[in-house]
């Protein structure tokens, strides 16, 4: 009786289970790419508009803090001016030394500025979508950074006018990294959006809290020297063969508006 009455619904359940079974094998889903390409301009418009509304409310809420913030910014500005002068000297010295050592200057990245159009609608994963894809030369594996060379993720799916960037805090993400101060190498993995863990660090290395973790460039996909975060805690792996370190990401990647994709 139940089956006869609900045959239409049971067929739908069966078809959906079939779709899930096919998708489980990780096969590319053309429907997914099509939907994302069609919806990308709308998502972008909604995002820009809501960003404006959110910014307005943030501004209204922050009026009371403007005076103290302004005083702080004046102080920061003075410090930065002094620091800027010191860095100009250092840059000049760096150029001279590079010339003397016949080192090539650091390559500038070929960057593609992209707008974040959407985030994970379920709030379970750690990724976002951007408004550019294969038509702009964006391919899977490319690194996504924010303005000053801070690594936020990697392109994991690319469609013609849209791409998915998986954050470094996602558990499926793995980045070859090293500690800037000690040159200790390891692999940085995400911990379900809660932070980062650097593992496979040799016992011979000396790590300290506060050390900066950067990408090591090993593997070739992600360039060397991109900032990942700072070490907050150092410990041992369960088998005591390696050291592990908790790393605090430099940026909160859940609140990004624009990112840059490193094409070369």
């Amino acid at each position, binding site marked *: 009786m139940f089956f006869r009455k609900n045959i239409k619904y049971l067929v739908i*359940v069966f078809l959906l289970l079939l779709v899930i079974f096919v998708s489980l094998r*990780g096969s590319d889903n053309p429907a997914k790419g099509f939907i994302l390409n069609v919806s990308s301009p709308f998502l972008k418009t909604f995002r820009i508009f809501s960003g404006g509304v959110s910014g307005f409310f943030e501004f209204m809420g922050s009026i009371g803090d403007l005076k103290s913030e302004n005083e702080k910014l004046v102080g920061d500005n003075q410090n930065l001016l002094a620091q800027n002068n010191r860095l100009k000297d250092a840059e000049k010295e760096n150029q001279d030394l590079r010339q003397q050592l016949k080192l090539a200057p650091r390559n500038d990245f070929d960057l593609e500025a992209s707008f974040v159009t959407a985030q994970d609608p379920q709030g379970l994963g750690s990724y976002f979508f951007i408004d550019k894809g294969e038509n702009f030369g964006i391919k899977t594996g490319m690194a996504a950074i924010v303005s000053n060379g801070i690594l936020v993720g990697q392109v994991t799916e690319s469609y013609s006018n849209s791409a998915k960037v998986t954050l470094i805090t996602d558990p499926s993400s793995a980045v070859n990294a090293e500690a800037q101060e000690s040159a200790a190498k390891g692999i940085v993995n995400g911990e379900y959006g809660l932070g980062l863990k650097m593992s496979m660090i040799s016992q011979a290395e000396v790590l300290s809290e506060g050390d900066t973790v950067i990408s090591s460039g090993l593997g070739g996909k992600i360039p060397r020297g991109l900032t990942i975060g700072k070490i907050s805690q150092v410990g041992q792996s369960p088998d005591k063969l390696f050291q592990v370190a908790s790393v605090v990401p430099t940026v909160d990647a859940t609140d990004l508006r624009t990112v840059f994709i490193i094409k070369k």
Partner: protein
Amino acid sequence: MKNLFLFLLCSAVIFLQFSVEGVFFSGRRIPDLVLALVITLVLAMGFKESLKWILFMGILVDAGSPSVFGTVTLAYFLIGWMVAGLINVSDIRSRKTFFLAIFAAAVLVFEIAKDMLIIASLNIQKNIFREPSGALLDIFSFDYLLKILYTIIAAYIIYYVFRRVSRSFFLEPVKLTKRDY
């Protein structure tokens, strides 16, 4: 007119879910407006009438979710079916307080069930088919509690707005019968 209204409503909710909510809520606290609308549609129009809109929204959400394609659609479909079953065994709209409590409980249970189905599909993908996947479900975390709370509040708002607006657009109120389910 009715179909156009429902199309615009479903599209607006999808865009809010994907694009706008992330600006106002942190990642793990994003309320599930689509679930709220699925329950609302079934309560207001019946499962049969809501079916195409549930599938439409499910497929769109599936396209941008970390889940295995089809899982979210299946979850929303089953939720819609179960809500219709709930109406069939008891007229939950008979008393206001009772309805509010049942409505909140339904959102709570179905949200957790849906997320568990998504996580289960990802674990199957990871452990059996060795495909990389990653998502976290911690139903005892503060973030998840807020997500549920926001979803319940959103569900109330969507339900009452929908009822008010549908009276103007649909001309005649839809009466549920056992045949609907």
